[in-house]
């Protein structure tokens, strides 16, 4: 269960998030849509504290992210404590960010050993299972540069899943891919959604939002303009901004 309340964030003079409130049940899929520069990615990066919020609270299963509350003061957590929290929040990047000097298998296995203290044999066994699940069991020994973009992103998803996160955040997971490779990554995302993984997905794939999302959120200029079921937001948008945006992407 994720609760985001009153989150503000500025970069210098530019206010990127202007008071975001969002709630997501465990096991639900939330898709965030919106034009570029609307603050979608920043919001996602605040949820795992890659960016510090200026104001507002983010809780996952009741646990405050990045801070410890004492009275009405918020004490920033040490890097060590933040890292421990992040190990339970998966993050999938637009540019994959696989470790290039490690094979696909090592990419999936090693974070388990380093961040969770798992035994190597257990970690590698799990890594094999996950590569199987994303359809890459035969590429386990390949280095990221030897894989296509779609394959790299599937390895990155397996790497995030390996830590058994409570929640996975996807930051435009298909935007850096050739159109023909988008489908293979969306297939993996659909499987995860059907399997009950809690997900927040920033994407421009309206089709995916319609099929897989429980909630669709439309953001513009640092605010949530509209949220609701896919049918409500995509087919009957109430706000002028979302109507204009959707009319452009739903040709």
């Amino acid at each position, binding site marked *: 269960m994720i609760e985001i309340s009153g989150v503000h964030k500025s970069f210098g003079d530019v206010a990127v998030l202007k008071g975001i409130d969002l709630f997501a049940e465990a096991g639900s899929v939330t898709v965030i849509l919106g034009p570029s520069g609307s603050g979608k990615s920043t919001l996602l990066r605040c949820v*795992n504290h*890659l960016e510090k919020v200026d104001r507002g609270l983010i809780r996952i299963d009741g646990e405050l992210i990045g801070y410890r509350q004492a009275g009405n003061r918020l004490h920033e957590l040490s*890097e*060590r404590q933040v*890292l*421990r*929290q*992040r*190990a*339970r*929040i998966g*993050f999938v*990047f637009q*540019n994959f*960010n*696989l*470790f*290039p*000097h*490690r*094979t696909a298998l090592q990419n999936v296995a*090693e*974070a388990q050993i*380093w*961040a969770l203290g798992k035994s190597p044999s257990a970690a590698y066994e799990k890594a094999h299972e996950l590569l199987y699940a994303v359809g890459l069991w035969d590429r386990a020994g390949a*280095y*990221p*540069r*030897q894989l296509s973009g779609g394959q790299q992103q599937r390895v990155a998803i397996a*790497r*995030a899943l390996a*830590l058994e996160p409570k929640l996975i955040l996807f930051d435009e997971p298909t935007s850096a891919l050739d159109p023909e490779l988008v489908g293979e990554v969306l297939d993996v995302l659909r499987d995860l959604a059907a399997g009950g993984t809690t997900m927040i997905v920033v994407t421009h794939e309206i089709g995916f939002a319609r099929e897989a999302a429980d909630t669709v959120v439309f953001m513009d200029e640092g605010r949530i303009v509209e949220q609701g079921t896919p049918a409500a937001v995509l087919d009957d948008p109430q706000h002028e901004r979302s109507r204009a945006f959707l009319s452009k992407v739903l040709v």
Partner: protein
Amino acid sequence: MTVLTPPRRKENVDDPVVVPARHPWRWAGTALVLVLVAQFVHGLVTNPGWDWTTFFGYFLEKSVLEALGLTLLLTLAGAVFGFLGGIPLAAMRLSPNPVLATVSWAYIWVFRSVPLLVQLLFWANLGYLYDTLQIGIPFGPGYSFPTVDLISSFGAALLGLALHEAAYAGEIIRAGLLSVDHGQHEAAAALGIPQWRQFSRIVLPQAMRAILPNAANLLVSLLKSTSIVYVLAIGELFYQVQVIYGRNGRVVPLLMVATVWYVILTALLSILQYYTERHFARGAVRTLPPTPFQRIKAAITR
């Protein structure tokens, strides 16, 4: 690994044949270079001034080999202490703390500004500035030692080389760390990997690709910089050949003794560099090219 052989195709007489372009100037250039090389080699063999008998007489002589050992020791110790000093300098310069960053910047500025020769003479004359050196609480009590006892001329040489190297090594390491894509830091942080592991397993192995060629350069340059410490009358290779030609007057052949040893050592370092770089190239290229040795083997067994 399987080797794919292209399927044989029936030759068609009407298929146009590709004729490679001719490069007459390339041939002319090659001929010219070969003539010059031949002339140079001829001179090496026939000019009596090279005095190869004296050269071979001293090349493996005991005092020369001992001096060579000292040169290697100075290079090795200078490199080890230099890089050990470079690590904190790089870390400090990249630190968000302005005091640490400025101190590191100033150190690098000073030690890159002062010529190594001048610096060596300063260290050798430290006893003139400070009679005694003291270990203890800053501005408080402590033990003191006479400077001259503590810093021998070998100590001064090593200190000078290491401090000089550290300034350059710090910059080389910093450049390497900066060359790692920001996304790698973010991915490691997002996975919750502990900070030390992020550095040692993810950032450093990738930084090594940028660090190694420059570090090898620095090492080769250090090998030859050790010849400067002859001013402190330390019996390393260059000092030793000077002593010998001071005695027998055969300057050129003895300079060649030192030169050939420097060339051999640099060659060994270059080979070491090649294989170390190859090790850290994993994943950076799709397939590693064969080593020269593998290429020769393939050419022979073909």
